[in-house]
């Protein structure tokens, strides 16, 4: 049953911002005080309801007290449902609160992702922290600041406009009176004031006046990461805890027909659970639990089903494409007329393999039942969503489930689902003791979900002058992210079609935008070549979006495109690509070297320009862009799930190659600070320009067009590897 729930959720998550049921959440005053520990409680309104709509924005406003709490020592506790998975939410949300409260970042203590303490800010996904949660926290902090200022004005019987707020204190210059937030918060009036809803139209600090936002604030708990003191989800140990292991089917779709647990059950200090298709065990050490699982697995007999193999993947997706029915193309002009009018028509198909997120920390959870209440420490990107899943699984009210997500070991969109949490809770319930379940790397490679594979069919028509007049683009299976072309073309038809995915698929950093941008930007290069026009000039001739033009021209300038394009050899190529997704824009120029003997494409340099509005934390944004660039190399050149007979054939780092130090090219990142628009997230879009820029560079050097990710050369021949 649990597996079904999870599978359904993953399907729904393909669009990343799918509508989710609104979660209600209640918190008693007493438990709140206890959990926050020492400190002055301003107020908590009992039974405050929080909600969100798709996209992570609050449906109903929360109270100020639900967002922040002022402590007696003047520090301020701010609460958010977002998780920290390495992309910088902790620093950024700390900055957001500090900015509006007019205090230094180190005066803020940010409590993240504990369902007993924090409002539901939606999943940490879809680049939504910056455009949704940062503004929500800023509004909460600004409302608090205004309420405190107004109270000071009332107490002193002076005009609100005569007061300054600085360094956590309110000052009336004329009478030289000052009161700190902490002192003010002792008044009963504040308790009443903070029970008010966060104002939706409170004035927040304009970009030009930012003092904390816009600066390189370090992640507040960085020291604990370098000393090993931080406890990740897989590091949680509870008294009397056991380590659990789950029996996995030998192949996808296999069902358990019979099993003999008697031998395992007779083993000392071991708990064995069998409930339908769920079989697991728990023991005092993970080594022991693994031994028990081996004993159990030997007795299991399975009914297997046939399953497509990765060798036949693209023909399978194409054969099962749902091109009609609910899949409706978006059209402009007439594609038929555009293609008929064209003097040259190109038709190409691109392919993208399944890949895996491979977060450094595999799924992990520690579950503990006490008095009918369940607490789980786990690594998921939606604590309230996991809370809901657990409540449904165990058929208990969600108030009796508490999910805590300690800062976790990365996710990249791969931790929407809380399988380990459910598994640990099932074992813990049966054992009557806390149980930790830590997935192995092989389990993560096999039973987590994958970035969707894609077949993308493109048709393009050029007129006699080399202008693009027709664009027909169909993505089969991967989804619609960034599927629309930013280029100005009179006749277009664009379709995202579903198919029968052999693997369980779900969100990934930028999801289908990478596949769609790979196809579009590769195809634009092919069309430019067919038109006999430089690829940069060809793009600019069709590009009206000023933001994309700016990053494209910036990348080309810093890379010295015009000069280096002329210097290409048979072994050294240069290529470029650009794109937009999630309200940010990116362009990359790359240089590649081709080693024909070894069949290697080596990326020498990536020069990328990126813009996501006003930069909130330049150091963190640089890390995100650098990380996206290198992660992009993996999907472009080496990462690919291989499977046959329902088994993943390369479920290890030996068989599945991710980028390593040796693969790191020279990287030039150019961040453009556009203060005319709101800030957008920056942790995803920088990935989408990498693969097409590489493919285009390989073509320039060799004349060989590679239309499949990952891209490979066959040694010696220089020909593209046939699938």
């Amino acid at each position, binding site marked *: 049953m649990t597996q079904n729930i999870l599978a359904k959720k993953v399907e729904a998550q393909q669009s990343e911002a799918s509508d989710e049921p609104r979660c209600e959440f209640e918190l008693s005053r007493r438990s709140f005080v206890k959990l926050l520990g020492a400190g002055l409680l301003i107020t908590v309104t009992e039974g405050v309801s929080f909600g969100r709509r798709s996209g992570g924005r609050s449906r109903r406003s929360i109270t100020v007290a639900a967002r922040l709490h002022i402590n007696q020592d003047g520090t301020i506790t701010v609460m958010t449902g977002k998780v*920290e*998975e*390495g*992309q*910088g939410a902790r620093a950024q949300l700390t900055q957001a609160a500090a900015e509006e409260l007019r205090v230094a970042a180190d005066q803020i203590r940010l409590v993240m992702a504990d369902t007993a303490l924090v409002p539901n800010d939606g999943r940490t996904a879809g680049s939504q922290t910056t455009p949704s949660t940062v503004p929500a926290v800023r509004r909460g902090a600004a409302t608090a600041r205004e309420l405190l200022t107004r109270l000071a004005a009332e107490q002193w019987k002076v005009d609100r406009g005569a007061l300054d707020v600085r360094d956590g204190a309110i000052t009336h210059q004329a009478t030289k009176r000052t009161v700190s937030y902490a002192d003010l918060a002792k008044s009963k009036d504040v308790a009443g004031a903070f029970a008010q809803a966060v104002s939706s139209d409170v004035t927040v600090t304009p970009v030009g006046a930012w003092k904390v936002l816009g600066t*390189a604030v*370090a*992640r507040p708990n*960085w*020291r604990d*990461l*370098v*000393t*090993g*003191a*931080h*406890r*990740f989800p*897989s*590091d949680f*140990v509870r008294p009397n805890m056991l*380590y659990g292991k789950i029996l996995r089917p030998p192949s996808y779709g296999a069902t358990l027909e019979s099993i003999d647990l008697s031998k395992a059950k007779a083993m000392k200090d071991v708990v064995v659970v069998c409930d339908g298709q769920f079989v697991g065990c728990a023991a005092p*050490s*993970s*080594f022991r639990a693994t031994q028990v699982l081996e004993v159990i697995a030997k007795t299991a007999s399975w009914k297997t089903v046939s399953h497509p193999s990765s060798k036949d993947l693209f023909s399978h997706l194409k054969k099962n494409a749902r091109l009609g029915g609910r899949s409706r193309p978006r059209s402009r002009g007439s594609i038929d007329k555009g293609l008929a009018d064209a003097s040259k028509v190109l038709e190409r198909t691109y392919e993208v393999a399944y890949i895996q*997120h*491979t*977060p*450094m*920390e*595999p799924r992990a959870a520690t579950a503990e039942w006490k008095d009918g209440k369940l607490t789980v420490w786990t690594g998921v990107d939606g604590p309230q969503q996991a809370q809901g899943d657990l409540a449904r699984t165990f058929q208990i009210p969600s108030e009796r489930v508490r999910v805590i997500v300690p*800062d*976790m*070991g*990365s996710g*990249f969109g791969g931790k929407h689902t809380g399988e380990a949490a459910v598994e640990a809770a099932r074992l813990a319930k049966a054992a009557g003791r806390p149980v930790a379940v*830590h997935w*192995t*790397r*092989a389990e993560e490679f096999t039973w987590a979900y994958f970035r969707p594979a894609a077949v993308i069919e493109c048709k393009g028509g050029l007129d006699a002058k080399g202008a693009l007049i027709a664009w027909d683009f169909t993505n089969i299976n991967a989804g619609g992210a960034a599927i629309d072309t930013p280029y100005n073309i009179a006749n277009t038809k664009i379709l995202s079609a579903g198919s029968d995915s052999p693997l369980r698929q779900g969100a990934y950093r930028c999801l289908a935008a990478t596949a769609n941008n790979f196809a579009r930007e590769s195809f634009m290069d092919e069309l430019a070549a067919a038109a006999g026009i430089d690829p940069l000039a060809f793009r600019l001739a069709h590009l009206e979006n000023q933001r994309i033009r700016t990053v494209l021209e910036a990348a080309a300038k810093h890379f010295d495109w015009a000069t280096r394009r002329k210097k290409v050899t048979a072994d050294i190529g240069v290529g470029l690509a650009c794109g937009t997704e999630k309200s940010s824009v990116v362009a990359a120029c790359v240089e590649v070297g081709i080693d024909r003997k070894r069949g290697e494409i080596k990326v020498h340099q990536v020069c990328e320009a990126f813009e996501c509005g006003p930069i909130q934390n330049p*150091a*963190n944004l640089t*890390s995100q862009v*650098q*990380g*996206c*660039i*290198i*992660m992009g190399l993996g999907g472009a050149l080496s990462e690919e799930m291989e499977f046959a007979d329902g088994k993943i054939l390369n479920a*290890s*780092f*030996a068989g599945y190659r*991710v*980028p*390593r*130090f*040796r693969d*790191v090219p020279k*990287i030039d990142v150019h961040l453009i600070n556009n203060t005319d628009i709101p800030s957008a997230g920056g942790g995803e879009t920088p990935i989408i320009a990498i693969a097409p820029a590489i493919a285009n560079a390989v073509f320039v050097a060799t004349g060989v067009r590679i239309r499949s990710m990952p891209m490979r050369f066959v040694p010696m021949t220089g020909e593209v590897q046939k699938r």
Partner: protein
Amino acid sequence: MDVKVNLTVNGKKRSVTTDPKRSLLDVLREELNLTGTKYGCGEGRCGACTVLMDGKRVLSCVTPAAQANKKTITTIEGLARGDSLHPVQEAFLAEGAMQCGYCTPGMILTAAALLEKNPNPTDEEITTAMNVNLCRCNGYTKILNAVRRASKK
């Protein structure tokens, strides 16, 4: 058949009775509650489990506990001297060389072992020494800067 393994971990003498085939990683994490050392792959290909054994870097996930008998182990928890961080730890903070931080203990210990042996490594030597360590946030650029910075101290 369990055996007794005597080892010195972060300066303290410890004794663990365990299956000799059990990994040193499991012993550190589950017996000694030193969870700074991470599981990443269990096949010795990601470096998250790196510790120092008699000063040399080892991959604790593929090191049987029995091999640690009579050895001196340093984990990430034992690298600083009191409140004074190791130069490599300082350099990681100065460069902001971590994102999720899960690979960080292994990265720091690998770099510390390298610099102990070779205080002034070339970029090529750093890359060779660090290549077994994976960072999936792909923060390699800043990590390389951190190792370079630490080598200058």
